[in-house]
């Protein structure tokens, strides 16, 4: 009896050890990736790396056009996907009744979230670049990324609406306000921090995407910054791809590639951090 208990204890000890090792391994993976890129990328990053265009066949100089390009395309993504996404979330959370239409909308959103990013790229080429004749442009790429981000925005915004207590709605409706007045005055302000956080997180994912923009508007090298929505643009993720696989002197430009990778990671993390801080601050402001 006693030995059986001991055996079981040993079993538990080993079992928990293995599971702990799994978790530790995941931490180590993340650490190795970040450490390798941070250590080798940090020496490349300087003010001139961030503020100059590439020079001498992209073997020298900086990444300014790529940073600006990513910035602009991300704004187009947000302008397109946030209003539609929040609108869809309002419908699902505030108006929709259970039924076939709602089920279909939800099923579509879940499936859209699983569509491979390169398929969004193909869709962007067929619809925006060719059918709508927008050409390979910052607009086509932004719209393509917007479609990719949409399911994420809808899901996070709907979650934000769900956290608003029912009583806030009922109080307003009981006083004779219409559903829209209720949403605008009593639901949206409270859901706003959650919506904003979700939107920024979605946008940060879009900023790091490469496959959807490959054929919808990103350019190998452009000396000047994009001047209009129909211009092509450089983007950080694509620049990293080029510098690490397509460049004619790959080994020589490795430091530049490391620097680009580090800037991209920092950009994504800064966006994430902004989202978290905004959520914290706005929550304190609105919810007492």
């Amino acid at each position, binding site marked *: 009896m006693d030995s059986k208990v001991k055996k079981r204890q040993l079993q538990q000890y080993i079992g928990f050890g293995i599971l702990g090792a799994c978790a530790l391994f*995941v931490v180590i993976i993340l650490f190795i*990736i970040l450490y390798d890129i941070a250590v080798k990328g940090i020496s490349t990053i300087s003010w001139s790396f961030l503020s100059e265009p590439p020079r001498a066949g992209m073997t020298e100089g900086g990444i300014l056009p790529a940073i600006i390009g990513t910035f602009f395309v991300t704004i187009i993504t947000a302008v397109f996907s946030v209003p539609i996404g929040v609108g*869809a979330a309002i*419908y699902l959370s505030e108006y929709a009744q259970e039924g076939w239409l709602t089920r279909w909308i939800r099923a579509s959103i879940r499936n859209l979230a699983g569509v491979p990013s390169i398929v969004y790229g193909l869709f962007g080429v067929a619809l925006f670049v060719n059918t709508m004749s927008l050409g390979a442009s910052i607009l086509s790429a932004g719209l393509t990324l917007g479609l990719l981000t949409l399911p994420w925005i809808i899901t996070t915004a709907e979650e934000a609406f769900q956290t608003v207590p029912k009583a806030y709605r009922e109080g307003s409706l009981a006083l004779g306000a219409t559903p829209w007045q209720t949403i605008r005055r009593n639901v949206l302000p409270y859901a706003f921090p959650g919506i904003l956080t979700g939107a920024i997180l979605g946008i940060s994912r879009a900023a790091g995407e490469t*496959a959807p923009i490959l054929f919808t508007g990103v350019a190998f090298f452009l000396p000047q910054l994009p001047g209009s929505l129909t211009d092509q643009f450089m983007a950080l993720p694509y620049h990293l791809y080029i510098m690490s696989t397509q460049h004619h002197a790959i080994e020589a430009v490795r430091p530049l590639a*490391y620097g680009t990778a580090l800037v991209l990671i920092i950009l994504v993390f800064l966006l994430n951090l902004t989202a978290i801080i905004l959520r914290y601050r706005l929550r304190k402001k609105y919810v007492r």
Partner: protein
Amino acid sequence: MKLRHLTDTFFRYLFLVAGVSAIGILFSIFIMLAINGLQTFADVSIAQFILSAQWNPSAFGEPSYGILALVASTFMVTVGAMIIAVPLGIGTAAYISEIAPSYIRETLKPVVEILAGIPSVVVGFFGIVFLGPLIADMFNLTSGLNALNGSILLAVMALPTIVSVSEDALRSVPKEFKEASYALGVNRWLTLIKITLPAASSGIVAAVMLGVGRAIGETMTVLMATGNALQMPGSFFDSVRTMTANIAIELGEVPFGTTHYYGLFAVGLVLFLMSLAVNITSEHFTKKYRWTRK
């Protein structure tokens, strides 16, 4: 009718349109892929497309459009990724939800989130500069850009999904199940193995399916780390080209409206249908575990 009621009706329909747009987009993607993709079969027989391993659209005289090698490559790196990510992901999820003290849990969750936030192109870059040379060294290969490299990286990409969805499934197991087990004198380990994991199994299957979906659809990491040789994969040390990588490589260089152009949309259509099938399977299992929830 008062103005505010008119406004209300207006917004109700506006939001309805936004909601319905999700259905519209999914169907437009399918129709756009089908319209373009199916034109391939004006020149190529469906049997050749599915059964031939020869993808050589630019061959002079007799171009061939067989996706078997591409599908096999996608399948291979996905299976490889799951062999790594499934045990690791479920183990991590079990540790986070059942064992870890709260302060470790609060550190592990952001770790998983940060891992999910790393752009795929950065993971691919890591495969080129770190993992590739490491694999080449370990196994005495000339190049470390192969199916093994791609599998490991895809495992990293799929891990956050598997961990967070599995953890959710484990946590949704009713407390009473565990308490009943403890009350019978069963220790925590056996309760986890015999009670909690089986009770969460459909949710865990859903998590794995979502991970499979990520691995199948991932483009940049495999494009950068697998070497992209067009061939039937023989071993994990072979260079492979997945469906996603093939589209990414060739779409830039094909003229609009050629059989080759349509052929890439046909590959995209196959990819779309696969991801749809994986998603629907995952959803089926998710429903099951939501049902067990009170």
